[in-house]
């Protein structure tokens, strides 16, 4: 059962990510991105990272996607003009992709620690909000405070950047 879930999610993730890169309409791209992010949240659940799966859906698929869609709406971005990309680029991308897929199946088994298997439910835990919170508010509390400052700076920066120039 576990391999089945993994393969469905893996194929879905790769297909939606490739669609994001391939399609030209920005709204289609945004939909592809949201599908990829939700599939990633499902992969987090297969890795027993439940809190992160929830955060992924709320922050990425929620807040970040709304930002993207607002900017698409605001800028009224048109479809990119259809152009024939140079053959060198297409051949290069296909070659690198093919070599990567073939190479990954060969390289990954060379490292013994990648052969570890762990069934769902056998993880040591650490995926729940309580356990993450304990770490976050004890050993990582300085980083947590720094993140708060970072978000404040980002908010102020966005407001300053988006302000209309008062002199013009």
């Amino acid at each position: 059962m576990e391999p089945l879930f993994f393969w469905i999610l893996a194929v879905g993730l790769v297909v939606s990510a490739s669609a994001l890169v391939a399609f030209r309409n920005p709204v289609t791209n945004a939909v592809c991105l949201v599908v990829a992010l939700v599939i990633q949240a499902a992969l987090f659940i297969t890795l027993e990272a439940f809190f992160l799966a929830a955060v992924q859906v709320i922050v990425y698929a929620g807040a970040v996607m709304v930002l993207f869609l607002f900017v698409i709406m605001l800028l009224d971005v048109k479809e990119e003009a259809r152009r024939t990309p140079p053959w060198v680029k297409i051949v290069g991308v296909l070659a690198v992709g093919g070599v990567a897929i073939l190479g990954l199946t060969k390289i990954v088994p060379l490292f013994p620690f990648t052969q570890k298997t762990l069934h769902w439910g056998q993880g040591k835990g650490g995926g729940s909000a309580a356990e993450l919170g304990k770490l976050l508010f004890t050993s990582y509390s300085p980083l947590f405070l720094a993140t708060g400052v970072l978000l404040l700076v980002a908010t102020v920066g966005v407001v300053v950047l988006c302000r209309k120039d008062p002199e013009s």
Partner: protein
Amino acid sequence: MIFGEITLGHYLALSSLLFLIGLAGVILRRSLLIIMMSLELLLNAANLALVAVGRFQGLPDPQVAVFFVITVAAAEVALGLAILVAIFRIKKTTAADQLATLRF
């Protein structure tokens, strides 16, 4: 062997594949908006690798790192899109190859 039990290697391979796709998007696309979406893919690939390694090694710390990565990514998207809107106001375009003022 590939289609048997799911190992840590499967997750790492999927993560590197996702990273490659995102990198292709950053290199090949011209629209700044799509480039930023591809950057999100890159960050997600890193997140997936971190969570997978953390779970298979029995460590909760990588998940805290992913938590911070998600926070920083949210700040990055907000700032990046604000810069995008500011550029669009001045240049009336978001195509990366039209913004060549600094090239010489």
